[in-house]
C-alpha cells in the first residue's frame, strides 16, 4: 500500500525524484511572457509549436539580453512549486540560432555602447615589445597553437603566463572572467593580457558576447588584446578590448615585433653610417679646399698690389733721376761758384772743368 503523504511531503518527494532523474536539462525553445519582477526575479515561458513550460531564474544569472520571441537554450532543473505548479529553475540561458544571437548581440551592444564601454578614448596603447604577457585560452585549441608558433617565430625572451580555460560553451565566460581576475590580482602585473580562441560558429563564439565578461575586460587594469578568430562579425569582447586582432596569429603579430625585420632595420641603420661618414669627410675636404683657394687668392692679390706699388715707386724714381734732366739738355754744376774757383759742369755727353769768371745775382 502506498504511503500516505502530506501535500508538502508529496511535493518534496517529487522534487527529490526530479532532481535525481534530471539534475540538469538543456532545453531549446522560444521565449514568451518574459518579465523581471522587483529587479531580481525573472519569469518567462519556454515553448515550441506544441508545448510550453514556465521558467524562473534570478536576474544575476541573466548574462545576455533576452526578449520574447527569441530562440534560446536553457540549462535548468525541473521543479514542482509549493503551489503545485511545474516550473524550470534556470541556471543559464543563451540565445540560439542566428536571429536570436544577432538580436541579443545588438541589444547588449547598444546598452554597453551607451555606457561608453566601446569609446575610443578608453583604449590604451599596448606596449611595443612586452617582456611579460598573460594569455587566456584553451591550450588544446588550434588558435592557441597558432598564437604560440607565431610568437616564437617573431620574438624571443618573453615570459608568457598561460591560463588554460574553456573558450566555448556555457562555462567559458566565467572561466575567462576568473582568469582575468587572477592576472589582475597579481603583485607583478603582466604588461598585456591576450584573450584568444580559434574561429567557430556564431554560437561557438557567443561566450565572447557575455555581458559580465565584456565588463570584466573593460575593467582590466592590464591592457587587453582580444584575438577571437572570426572574420565576419566582431564580438563585444573585441569591441571593448584595448586592441582586437582578427585571428590568434594576428594577435601574436600585434603583440611582438618581427625579429628578422628588427635585425634588418638594425643592420640598415649601421650601414647608413659609412656613407654618412664619407659624406662628412667629403664635405670637410671641400671646405678645406675652398679655404686653401681663398688663401691663395688673397696671396695673389697682395703680391699684385705690392708689384703695382713697386712699379709706381719705380716710375716716380725714374722721373726724379738727374740723368733724365741732363737728357733734356740741362747741365749739372758742382763746386763753389765764386769768381776764380774751378767748377765741374756735367752734361749728357761730357764732364767739363771750368773757371768762374763772373757771378751776377739775379
Amino acid at each position: 500500500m502506498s504511503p500516505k503523504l502530506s501535500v508538502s511531503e508529496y511535493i518534496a518527494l517529487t522534487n527529490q525524484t526530479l532532481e535525481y532523474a534530471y539534475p540538469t536539462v538543456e532545453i531549446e525553445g522560444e521565449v514568451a511572457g518574459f518579465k523581471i519582477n522587483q529587479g531580481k526575479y525573472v519569469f518567462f515561458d519556454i515553448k515550441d509549436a506544441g508545448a510550453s513550460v514556465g521558467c524562473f531564474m534570478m536576474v544575476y544569472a541573466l548574462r545576455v539580453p533576452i526578449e520574447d520571441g527569441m530562440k534560446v537554450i536553457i540549462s535548468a532543473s525541473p521543479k514542482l512549486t509549493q503551489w503545485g505548479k511545474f516550473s524550470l529553475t534556470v541556471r543559464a540561458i543563451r540565445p540560439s540560432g542566428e536571429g536570436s544571437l544577432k538580436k541579443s548581440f545588438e541589444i547588449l551592444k547598444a546598452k554597453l555602447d551607451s555606457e561608453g564601454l566601446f569609446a575610443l578614448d578608453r583604449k590604451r596603447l599596448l606596449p611595443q615589445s612586452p617582456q611579460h604577457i598573460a594569455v587566456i585560452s584553451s591550450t588544446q585549441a588550434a588558435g592557441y597553437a597558432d598564437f604560440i608558433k607565431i610568437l616564437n617565430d617573431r620574438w624571443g625572451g618573453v615570459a608568457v603566463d598561460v591560463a588554460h580555460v574553456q573558450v566555448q560553451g556555457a562555462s567559458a565566460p566565467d572561466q575567462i572572467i576568473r582568469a582575468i581576475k587572477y592576472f589582475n590580482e597579481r603583485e607583478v602585473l603582466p604588461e598585456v593580457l591576450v584573450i584568444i580562441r580559434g574561429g567557430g560558429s556564431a554560437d561557438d563564439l557567443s561566450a565572447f558576447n557575455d555581458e559580465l565578461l565584456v565588463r570584466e575586460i573593460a575593467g582590466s587594469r592590464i591592457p587587453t588584446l582580444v584575438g577571437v578568430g572570426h572574420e565576419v562579425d566582431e564580438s563585444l569582447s573585441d569591441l571593448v578590448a584595448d586592441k582586437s586582432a582578427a585571428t590568434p596569429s594576428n594577435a601574436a603579430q600585434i603583440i611582438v615585433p618581427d625579429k628578422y625585420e628588427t635585425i634588418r632595420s638594425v643592420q640598415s641603420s649601421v650601414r647608413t653610417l659609412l656613407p654618412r661618414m664619407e659624406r662628412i669627410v667629403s664635405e670637410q675636404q671641400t671646405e678645406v679646399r675652398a679655404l686653401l683657394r681663398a688663401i691663395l687668392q688673397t696671396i695673389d692679390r697682395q703680391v699684385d698690389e705690392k708689384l703695382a706699388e713697386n712699379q709706381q715707386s719705380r716710375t716716380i724714381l725714374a722721373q726724379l733721376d738727374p740723368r733724365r734732366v741732363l737728357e733734356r739738355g740741362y747741365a749739372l754744376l758742382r763746386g763753389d761758384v765764386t769768381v776764380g774757383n774751378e767748377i765741374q759742369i756735367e752734361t749728357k755727353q761730357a764732364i767739363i772743368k771750368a773757371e768762374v769768371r763772373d757771378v751776377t745775382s739775379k
Partner: protein
Amino acid sequence: MSQVNKTSQKTIQQKTIELHEIVAWFDSDEFTLEKAMDTFKKAEALAADIEHDLLSLKNDIQVIKQKFDTETSE
C-alpha cells in the same frame, strides 16, 4: 626578465636605444671625425650583439597551475 643579455645585462630594447643614439650622434653637432671610426665600430658591435640576442633568446611559456573551472582560488 629573459630579454636581458647575460654578458652585458642590457635588454634588447636598451641596446636598440643605445644604437639609435649612436646613429643620431653622426648627425649631431658633437660629431668629430676623430671619434667617428671608433663610434662606428661600436655601432657595428652593438648591431651584431642585438642580432645575436634576437636569434638566440627563447620565450618562456608557463601554463599556470591555477584552475579556473570553479570558484576556488589559489
